[in-house]
C-alpha cells in the first residue's frame, strides 16, 4: 500500500521579504522540496514604453531612471547612446570620461545592494548594513554633482545635465582608497564564511549553454564561466581605452555557475570598476559637457538598437523613430527580465531556502522586470 501524498502550492510574494520587491512566485512544493517555480510579474508595470511614446526624446530620460532604480546612470547611458546613434552625433571627450566614471561608480553602488541583499536573504544581516553604509559615500559623491540621491537624470542625449562638482575628483579618489580595504572586509565577513559557502556553493548551477540560450547576461552569465562583457566585446563609449579584467566564475567553492560564483563575480567586478575609475579620473579632459544639438530633437526616420553593460547585464534600447519629436516606439531589453526567466530552470529540485539564495544571486530589480 502506498501513501497518497499531495503537493502543496506556496505563494511567495508579492509581499515577501526576499522577493526583492513585488515579484510573486508560485512554488509547488512537496515538504520542503520545490518541484516547480512559476513567476508572476507585472506588479510594478509602470507603462514605461507607453510614456516614452508620449514624451519628447529628452523627456524620456527621467523615466529611464526609474527602470533599474539601483543603476540609474546605466539606464540613462543606454538610452542616450541609442538616441545619439539615431541622431548620428558624437559627444565631447569630457562627457565620455565623466559618463564612464559615473557608470562605474553606479555599478559599485548597485553591486553593493545586490551582494548585501543576497547575504541578507541567507541570514547575514550585518554585511548588508555595512554595504549600505559604504553606498552612501557613492550617493553623496554623485549627489554633489547632479543633485539627487537615486534617480539622477544626469546623462542627457548629447551630453550631461551638469558639469561635475569641483570636489568630484578629490572625493572619488578618496572613495577609491577607502573602498579597497572594505572589499577585503566583505570577503572576510561574508564571501569566505563557511556557512555562506555551504548555502550557496553547488546551488542553482547554471551551465553555459543554458545561460546563453536563455539570453542571460551580466554577472549571471559570467558566473557560468564565460568571458562575455559588452564593455570588452562590443565596446561603447570609451571603454576600449581602459585596462580591466573580466572576472568569471571558476567554481572555486563548488561547481562553475553556482550561486557562490555569481556572488563572487560581483565582488571582483567592484574591484575592476575601481580600476577603471582610477585610470579615468586623472585624465578627464577640459571642455564642454554638451554636444551641439538642437533643443527639439528630431531624428531621421529609422531604428536604432544600442546596448550597454549594466550592473545586471546587457541593457538594450530599441528606438524606432518616425521622424517626429516623440519616439515612435521604445522597447527596453531589460537584463533582469531576461535573467529572471532562468529562475524556473534553476530552482527545480532545490529546497525552499535555496530559492531565496538563487533569486538573490540572480539579482533582479522589479522596476526593470516589469517596466
Amino acid at each position, binding site marked *: 500500500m502506498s501513501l497518497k501524498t499531495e503537493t502543496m502550492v506556496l505563494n511567495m510574494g508579492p*509581499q515577501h521579504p526576499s522577493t526583492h520587491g*513585488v515579484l510573486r512566485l508560485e512554488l509547488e512544493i512537496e515538504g520542503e522540496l520545490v518541484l516547480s517555480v512559476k513567476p508572476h510579474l507585472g506588479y510594478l508595470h509602470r507603462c514605461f514604453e507607453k510614456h516614452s511614446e508620449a514624451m519628447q526624446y529628452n523627456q524620456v530620460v527621467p523615466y529611464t531612471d526609474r527602470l533599474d532604480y539601483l543603476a540609474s546612470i546605466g539606464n540613462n547611458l543606454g538610452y542616450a547612446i541609442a538616441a545619439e546613434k539615431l541622431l548620428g552625433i558624437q559627444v565631447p571627450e569630457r562627457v565620455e570620461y565623466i559618463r564612464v566614471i559615473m557608470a562605474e561608480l553606479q555599478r559599485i553602488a548597485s553591486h553593493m545592494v545586490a551582494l548585501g541583499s543576497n547575504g541578507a536573504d541567507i541570514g547575514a544581516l550585518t554585511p548588508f548594513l555595512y554595504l*549600505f553604509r559604504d553606498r552612501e559615500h557613492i550617493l553623496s559623491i554623485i549627489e554633489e554633482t547632479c543633485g539627487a540621491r537615486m534617480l539622477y537624470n544626469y546623462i542627457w542625449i548629447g551630453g550631461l545635465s551638469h558639469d561635475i562638482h569641483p570636489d568630484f575628483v578629490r572625493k572619488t579618489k578618496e572613495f577609491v582608497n577607502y573602498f579597497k580595504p572594505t572589499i577585503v572586509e566583505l570577503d572576510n565577513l561574508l564571501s569566505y564564511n563557511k556557512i555562506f559557502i555551504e548555502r550557496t556553493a553547488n546551488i542553482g548551477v547554471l551551465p553555459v549553454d543554458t545561460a546563453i540560450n536563455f539570453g542571460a547576461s551580466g554577472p549571471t552569465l559570467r558566473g557560468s564561466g564565460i568571458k562575455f562583457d559588452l564593455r570588452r566585446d562590443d565596446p561603447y563609449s570609451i571603454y576600449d581605452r581602459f585596462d580591466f579584467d573580466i572576472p568569471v566564475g571558476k567554481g572555486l567553492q563548488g561547481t562553475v555557475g553556482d550561486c557562490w560564483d555569481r556572488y563572487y563575480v560581483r565582488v571582483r567586478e567592484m574591484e575592476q570598476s575601481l580600476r577603471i575609475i582610477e585610470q579615468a579620473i586623472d585624465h578627464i579632459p577640459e571642455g564642454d559637457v554638451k554636444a551641439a544639438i538642437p533643443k527639439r530633437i528630431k531624428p531621421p526616420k529609422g531604428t536604432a538598437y544600442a546596448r550597454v553593460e549594466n550592473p545586471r547585464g546587457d541593457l538594450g534600447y530599441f528606438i524606432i523613430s518616425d521622424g517626429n519629436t516623440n519616439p515612435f516606439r521604445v522597447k527596453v531589453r531589460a537584463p533582469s527580465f531576461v535573467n529572471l526567466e532562468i529562475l524556473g530552470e534553476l530552482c527545480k529540485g532545490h529546497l525552499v531556502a535555496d530559492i531565496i539564495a538563487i533569486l538573490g544571486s540572480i539579482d533582479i530589480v522589479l522596476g526593470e522586470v516589469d517596466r
Partner: protein
Amino acid sequence: MGLLDKEFSEGNIVITNVDDLLNWARLSSIWQLGFGLACCAIEMMATSMSHYDFDRFGVIPRNTPRQADAIIISGTVTLKMAIRIKRLYEQMPDPKYIISMGSCANCGGPYWEHGYHVLKGIDRVIPVDVYVPGCPPRPEALLEGLLKLQDKIRNESLRKKSA
C-alpha cells in the same frame, strides 16, 4: 452618573493620562510592514540602515502584516498591486497607520498621465495618514514624515471623536 460613564464622553485627568501613556507607547513603537514596492523602497531601506537608522525612533520592519503597525507605501502602486495592498491593510490589526511615500503613492507621480496600469494615488484604495512628497523622498523626508505621524498619534484619544 458614575465615574466611568463620564470618562468616555468628556476628558478628565484619569483618561487624559491614560491617553498620554497609550499614545506614547503607540508612537514610540511604530513597526513598519517590511514591504517595498519600487524605487522609494530603496530609500526606505537606506533609512533603516546605518546612516539614518530608523531604529532610533523604534521603527523596525516586521514581515507579516499581523505584527505591523504601519505600512509605508514606498513606490508606484499598480492596479494589480493595489488589490494586494488593500488585502494587506485589512490583515493588519488596529490601530494601523499608512505613510504614503513618494509622488507615485501620493498621486501617481510621473505616471499620472499615461500610466494605464498605475493607480493614481494609494488613497483611492486605503486611507492615508501622512503623505511624504518627493521622487523619491530623501531619507530625511521620510523621517520627517514619521515625526508627523507621531504628532498625529500624540493627539489621538480614547474619547469619542467629536466629529
